[in-house]
């Protein structure tokens, strides 16, 4: 199981990419995370994780078309791979399993 270990931030990034579907490029991901989680994310932190996840083949990416904004630079759109989806699902099931094992009284007070 440990080979599919996902860090907390990695998990969030994967989920955000999943949410954004075809629109998941750097700035969009940051915006989405900031609006949903009220959490400041730097480009540096995000890009490092994105590249790492891509290297682990959880994500794949391709360039979009060049536009006049962004200094004429193309966007790189990320999307989940099948493997990424599987890992995400596994993580979710683990969490669910853990949740279901928690006795009712633990939250009683």
């Amino acid at each position, binding site marked *: 199981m440990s080979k599919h270990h996902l860090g907390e931030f990695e998990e969030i990034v994967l989920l955000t990419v999943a949410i954004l579907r075809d629109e998941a490029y750097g700035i969009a991901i940051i915006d989405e995370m900031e609006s949903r989680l009220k959490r400041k994310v730097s*480009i540096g*932190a995000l*890009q*490092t994780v994105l590249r790492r996840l891509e290297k682990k083949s959880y994500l794949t990416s391709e360039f979009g078309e060049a536009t006049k904004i962004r200094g004429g*630079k*193309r*966007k790189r759109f990320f999307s989940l791979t099948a493997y990424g989806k599987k890992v995400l699902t596994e993580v979710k099931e683990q969490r669910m399993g853990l949740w279901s094992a928690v006795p009712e009284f633990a939250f009683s007070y």
Partner: protein
Amino acid sequence: MSEYQEQAPPRLFLRFFRWYCHRDYLEDIEGDLIEKFERKADQTDIKSAKWGFAKDVIRLFRPGIIRPITQTQQLYQLDMFKNYYKIAWRHILKEKFYSFINIAGLAIGITCCILISFFVKHELSYDNYHQKLDRTYRILQEYKSGNERATAPAAEDYQVWGNATVGPAFTEEFPEVDQFCRFTPGHNKLIKVKDELYDEKNIVFGDSTVFDVFSWELLSGNPESVLNKPNTIVLTESLAKKYFGNEDAMGKTVIYSQDVLCVVTGIMKDVPANSHFTFEGIISMGTFYNQRSWIFESWGYVDFYTYFTLKENANMESIKPKLAGLSEKYTGEWEDTKFYIEVEPLKGAYLNSVAARQPGKTGNKSSLIIFSIIGVFILLIACINFINLSTARSLERAKEIGIRKVVGARKFSLVNQFLSEFFLLTFFAGILSLLLVFFLSPYLEEFAGISIKTDDIFNIEFLGIFSIGIIIVGLVAGSYPAFLLSKFQPSKVLKGNFKTGKSGVALRKALVSFQFVLTITLIIGTATVYNQLTYLQEHELGFEKDQIIVMDFGYDGKVQENIEAFKNEFEKTPNILSVCASRAVPGNFFPNAGTQIENPDGKLENHSPAIYEIDPDFLSFYNIKVLAGRGFSYDHYSDSVDALIINNAAAKLWGYNNPEDVIGKKFDQWGKTGKVIGVVDDFNYQSLHTEVGPLTLRFEPYSMAKFSLKLSTGDIHSTIANLEDKWNELIPDRPFTFYFIDDSFDKQYNSDEKFAQLFSSFAVLAILIAFLGLFGLTTYTTAQRTKEIGIRKVMGASLRSIVILLSKDLSKLLLLSFVIAIPISWYATQQWLEGFAYQAPISLSVYIITAFIISGIAFGTMSWQSIKAALQNPVDSLKNE
């Protein structure tokens, strides 16, 4: 515009980001950064947007984002290098002729450099193997008499050869001195081993400290005691082998000088070739002492080379001021003569010492410098060839460069490409030159006595220097063409109306002229050296030297007693015209003698001229002219007792400008007193490096050592065979040895001959390389002008006018080179000639011949190509447009 600039993110940070970011991520992350920046600039103000941008760039500077320093880059570089080498190979193979000229020229240049550096290294290595070298010195001495005795002698007047007493006095007087060690010169010594006679020329007497002062290796025997008793001898390995074959020589007996038995107490390794003083055996000094002990007490008897070591931490400077005091203490009471002592370090003595009467060969610093310069010249010429050919051929590569640039090659990578191509060529040249060095090393051994073994090549030091040298040569030869080629502008090149720049042509011309200047200088140098040597050989020496052989009987007492009878016997041998006896013969060793002769003021004046002890036949035998008075004669019985003959130089030394005036003046020399009876013309009894010095000749029957015999031009072989038979019959206890006097006299020019041969072979190589280059260059430039020639021919130009047209440029260059080269070579040859007392007059013919040779070869090379081009049918050159 200004608004846009204001909107732009901070340039510095952007550039920083672009520099460090991974190439694959650069575009989209930069986009993200700019998007964020623009948005922030809209929402808040530009300042905080810039601030935020900077912060983001710095936060992005982390391992996942930074480009790897090596990995991907290297892969890409390696592929490009593979490509470069592939292209380079194709070019080398496509243009086999030019590649050959390039590689061969460079290889020859590098070979010369390697050979010369081995020579220089060898010369610099002399005596360096002695462990105590830094504190080993040798004593120089000079006796000065006459009016100038109060002025200290010049450095070149000091002699290494001196008396026996100064060494012991040094250890006694100076606490700084550790040990002294004396040698005698290795004059002819008769050695008898197992009934076999040997005439040894290189066995010396030596002090017992020899193995302490010097680091010669003893193979057997105790270094401290091998020579401390009389009648002991140490042999070198090769001499032991000569005497005893494979037997162990230790403890065996060797008979010296008929009756002195010496026991072999030690065997030493042969003295290394890089020693200023060599010998084959040492007889203990005690043996010599037993023979002639008075020599060891005399401050005036000269027969020793004295070396000494300082104690550790002692300083030479503290001894130097005390030298004059030492001389004063021991020789102060001498009335007419002053004894001078000087010391010089053994380190570098081989190259630097100017003292007279050296114990062995000396190096020649100036020829060392000359050869080093020639080595650099040759390499320069080869590099210039390379540059010339490569820039000339750059047109061919122009299209390739254009395409590469259009496809995206940067200037840097083009420089890289061409440099690596040139390095490849240089590398081949290097390999080739190593092969050449192996091939040529036997010749170097023959010329300079330097053997190059595989060990000398395959060691880290040599290979390291060699590779660095190759890289430097590659850079020197390759960098200009590489930068020139990479500067081509693709738009011009690919349009097709491209011409190499004017500056390139000018540079090429300058380089060719430079090459010519060097070659002309070398040719003039060679011609001058040969001119001088022929001059020396043909110079009137003032005595006859043809068809004369000398037989040495080594002061044999029995021969001396009946010298006239022996002379008569030899004269009776068929084909012998005449015979004379003497102690010294021209071109060989002679001693000096303290001599007093009455000067024009009537006072006896002391000098130390050379001395020849001869018989009355000597002067007529050698055809030496008597200027005044008469020669010795058997009719004057007292000639062997009270008569002296001097040469013209000696007469002048004592103040007589007219030789007649010295006749009848009183003299006192080596225990003899009497009158000067004759003056002979100055004949060159030494090599022509020096002027004829003052010489005295006296008739001394009991000092003879040599017979001189004049042969008729008959069968020399049978004459010598007859002489040998006669010798064995008359003098059976001496080996028969002989030499021709002209050979032995010319031997004094051996080192000059070698110098000339080496010099001329290097000059020939330099010329060869230069003309290889010229040939390549003209071939190419003519090829460039094929169309022009075609059109000219169609318009009616004659063959002659075309050849002249093509040769015009070359003539200008040649003329310019002459104007530059003549003063340079005149100065250089003048410097070299100063080493000779008799100089060949500088003849105009040397320069004219050089001019003919060089223009002949240059135009020959040129016209070969231009005539070929001019003869071509214009149809062929013009049809393919």
